């Protein structure tokens, strides 16, 4: 977990004054299940990337995909979206 700001450092009224600052927000602790991908048979179709509601699946330059666990809340949508059923949600 990254360092969380204290009440004195948060802008007045809990406002957000920095654009794009959700990049700093680590949601790992929300997760009960973590996606595990069997990469050997991945066709790089991108369905997991398309469906992930938290943009936790990131496209790499070689066309493959990686899970950024800092943003993954463990919802399991990628598991359902994977046509070849290569993603398994495993308990943390």
């Amino acid at each position, binding site marked *: 977990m990254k360092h969380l*700001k204290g009440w004195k450092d948060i802008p*007045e009224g*809990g406002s957000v004054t920095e654009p794009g600052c959700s990049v700093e927000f680590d949601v790992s*602790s929300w997760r009960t299940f973590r996606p595990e991908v069997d990469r050997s048979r991945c066709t790089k179709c991108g369905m997991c990337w398309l469906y992930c509601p938290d943009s936790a699946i990131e496209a790499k330059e070689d066309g493959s995909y990686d899970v950024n666990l800092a943003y993954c809340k463990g919802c399991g949508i990628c598991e359902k979206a994977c046509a070849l059923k290569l993603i398994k949600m495993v308990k943390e």
Partner: protein
Amino acid sequence: MTTKARAGKAQGSTTRIGLSGNYAVAYAVKMADVDVIAAYPITPQTTIVEKLSEMVANCELNAEYINVESEHSAMSACIGASLTGARVFTATSSQGLSYMSEVLFIASALRTPVVMANVNRALSAPLNIWNDHSDAMAERDSGWIQIWATSAQEAFDTTIMAFKIAEEMRLPVMVNMDGYIVSHTYEPVLLPDSGTVKAYIPSAPMENRVSTKLAYSTGVVGPPEYYYEMKYQSIDAMERSRDRIREIYVGYNKMFGRIYEDLTAYHLEDAEYALLTMGSTLGTARIAAERLRAKGKKAGVISLRTFRPFPSDRLLEAVEGLKAIGIMDRAATPGGPSNPLFADVSAALYGAKKGPVLQNFVAGLGGRDITVDDFLHMFKVTEEAAGEGKSRPTIYVGLRE
């Protein structure tokens, strides 16, 4: 004991005119030169915003008057306007305040310095347009500063001070006044000249927090990792406002020649027992105390002006030497260990070394008159409590069986 508040010599010129409490508020809002008013009419508050809309229509007040379809929207519009840096005012009563309820918490947490007159009226059912304090008491945890005015003059002065308090602390302020008794009764009111008011609260807009030149999001989600810290900011501001409000009272007293403090103490110096009230009943309580004094009884009266933040330290000082206090609630907490004002007073006095016996009364619900005889009865019960060293369960004064 703290030094007694002193009135200075009023600056500028003063006009003495007859005004109702509601019109006194409208004049204060006009002199405060507000930028935006968003309100929905509701008895007994209506004549405040009616007068203000007349002032705007006559170009006596250069403000945006937003007609909304409900109090929920009125408060929402006020928050939005306040975020742009505008000076904002609204007024409501009873059901209207309840309808605003969820938005009240947002106003305080977003730190928008909205000033609102709340003309105290009973909550339905049965439908009742008369005075008690159930509307404000239901919102006492909303994070709003709550100040109570006991006369038209106080309604005027408190409204002027409310803008200063709100904008300095960046917290919303509710100016409470009793429906009809204050709102519709005409009294002589000393109006300062608008130049003096302008010097006291210059109409300088605050920064525009929602300017398109800024990257700014407000009213965002506060997940469990952040809500607590975000909420605490307004709790901290409320705590800090305690001292600042006192300084503002002192400054106002000096500049406008009045006497305001967190609480008004009457004959407390040598009192053995006292009644504690809020709002306009102070006058009747004083008459009752005066009659008892004429008979050699040592009765006193305490009237709370600042209810949020609760002036616990001032109260502790004021009650020193008292054997008993009768606390008169004008609202009920059904099923609670006591009624709202009593609960706060007893919590504040819990730490007192030799605390007085506390007796709870409920009186005047739904505009029922609280007569001098009722007060004499409450004094008598409080005196008995002082003698016996113990109190009775809550007494519902004037209730027919």
